[in-house]
């Protein structure tokens, strides 16, 4: 049977998370279909049909799916689940929101945040904030998983030519409605897919210092900006910039942690980065145990100097 991948998109384009999820799905079976559920999603549907290795795109275009409300999306996915052996979505807030609902509707257990596919029934996933890796085998007849997108190399966005099938059956649970959205505006690369991430912690001491010390370095490196929970809780930056067990999981080529001690919960979100640089005035900070390069220095002096020398 085929594998169904749920596309993360904004109605006009598919996000990179979808390409990584297709890559994971290809390891579970050959025939991969992609579902694009949204409102006025023709452009995103066409983009999905171009994805390498996708044989079919299912398009569900209705106002009921406009904001990816879990109540409606889960009914839609459960409705077409009979045709699929696996249902796969990225472990984004969207995927985390509706996929357990799908699993419950199908009366199967599911696997969250899968980091490796051993075979079609066996997967690896991190537990205890990434301090252990569990290999789990499922014997459910329907495999429902969300995948950690940073653990799978994205397939090519072009080169495919999937046929598009339109789904007419509209599912509207009528229990919940969208009220409003407040998105953080940024011209920077998206945090979870950025090649370079510069993160600040409590030691930055203020939001102004993020602007003054972190942003110039991020600009120079074309980097996304992240933060520790302490920096978010102190109100220096918005919470969607938080990296960690309860925030975003990143695995960039280069992660620069400035003024971040390296609590277990923060390390859970970044310790799979290729190269980790820590700048901290405390030589005993736990971040030193994972940093490839540790510079013991006052970040208010080191960050401007680093910015000027890169």
């Amino acid at each position, binding site marked *: 049977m085929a594998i169904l991948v749920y596309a993360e998109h904004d109605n006009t384009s598919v996000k990179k998370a979808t390409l990584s999820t297709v890559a994971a799905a290809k390891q579970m079976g050959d025939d991969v279909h992609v579902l694009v559920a949204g409102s006025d999603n023709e452009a995103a549907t066409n983009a999905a049909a171009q994805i390498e290795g996708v044989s079919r795109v299912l398009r569900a275009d209705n106002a009921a799916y406009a*904001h990816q*409300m*879990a*109540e409606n999306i*889960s009914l839609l996915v459960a409705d077409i689940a009979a045709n699929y052996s696996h249902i796969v979505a990225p472990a984004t*807030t*969207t995927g*985390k*929101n509706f*996929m*357990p*609902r799908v699993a*419950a*509707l199908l009366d*199967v*257990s599911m696997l*969250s*945040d899968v980091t490796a596919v051993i075979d079609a029934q066996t997967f690896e996933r991190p*537990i*205890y*904030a990434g301090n*252990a*890796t*569990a*290999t*789990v*085998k*499922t014997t*459910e007849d329907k495999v429902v998983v969300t995948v950690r997108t940073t653990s799978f190399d994205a397939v090519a966005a072009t080169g495919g030519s999937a046929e598009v099938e339109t789904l007419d059956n509209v599912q509207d*649970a009528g*229990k*919940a*409605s*969208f009220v*409003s*959205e*407040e*998105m*953080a505006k940024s011209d920077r690369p998206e945090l979870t897919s950025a090649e*370079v991430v510069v993160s600040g912690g409590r030691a930055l001491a203020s939001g102004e210092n993020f602007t003054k010390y972190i942003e110039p370095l991020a600009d120079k*490196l074309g980097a996304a900006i992240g933060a520790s*929970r302490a920096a978010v809780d102190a109100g220096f930056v918005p*919470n*969607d910039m938080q990296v960690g*067990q*309860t925030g975003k999981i990143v695995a960039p080529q*280069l992660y620069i942690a400035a003024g971040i001690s390296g609590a277990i919960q923060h390390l859970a979100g970044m*310790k799979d980065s290729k*190269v980790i640089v820590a700048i901290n005035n405390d030589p005993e900070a736990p971040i*030193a145990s*994972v*940093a*490839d*390069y*540790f*510079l013991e*220095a006052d970040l208010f002096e080191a960050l401007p100097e*680093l910015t000027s*020398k*890169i």
Partner: protein
Amino acid sequence: MKALVAVKRVIDYNVKVRVKADHSSVDLSNTKMSINPFDEIAVEEAVRLKEKGVIDEIIVASIGPKEAQEQIRTALALGADRGVLVVTEDKTQPLQVAKILKQIADQEGTEIVLLGKQAIDDDNNQTGQMLAALMGVGQGTFASEVVVEGDKVNVTREIDGGLQTVALDLPAIITTDLRLNEPRFAKLPNIMKAKKKPLDEKTPADFGVDMTSKQEIVKVVPPAERSAGVRVASVDELVDKLKNEAKVIG
């Protein structure tokens, strides 16, 4: 209206976990156990709703070993009214927990069920959503603000790009994010009073729920260790290493 709050007994968030030598699981013997931090936030939110007069009674439920009654007592000390402990030595899975919680919610006629968004041991982030699906009600996951208005609840949710607000018909399920509130500390007199609050003990069989799992843990291993890094003495040395050794900047 009544609220149901689900709490889980987990390893304390400050403990560095050890994987057992036989790779069967994580070693929990002689480790400090606590109420899951997200569940503590759920209890706090329920208590605040009670203080606002929105909720009349808070029922706190836990499914797990007998010792989980400590976590229920903690919730009672924070302001919950009574507890239900569903005792099982089996490993608890989100779908089975959701099935038991659904029956408790149905029996008690609770209109709001509050859960943490995830347990910090299994990191599943599933139970609240599964419960909402089983009950056929709306869900406000990853909540950072909860406002009850008449027969609806407005929930502001933390999503990848920022915040989203949804309106849910009651009854509804809410799962808490860290920023929803700051849990209070239990005062000693409240801890003493909590010992006298009612606590029912049940088993999964009372709810007709089969705890056998279709997921088998093949093995648990420690994550790959990062090789020890180097300490650099200056910004110049750092730039040099990044350019010529790690080759991550041009």
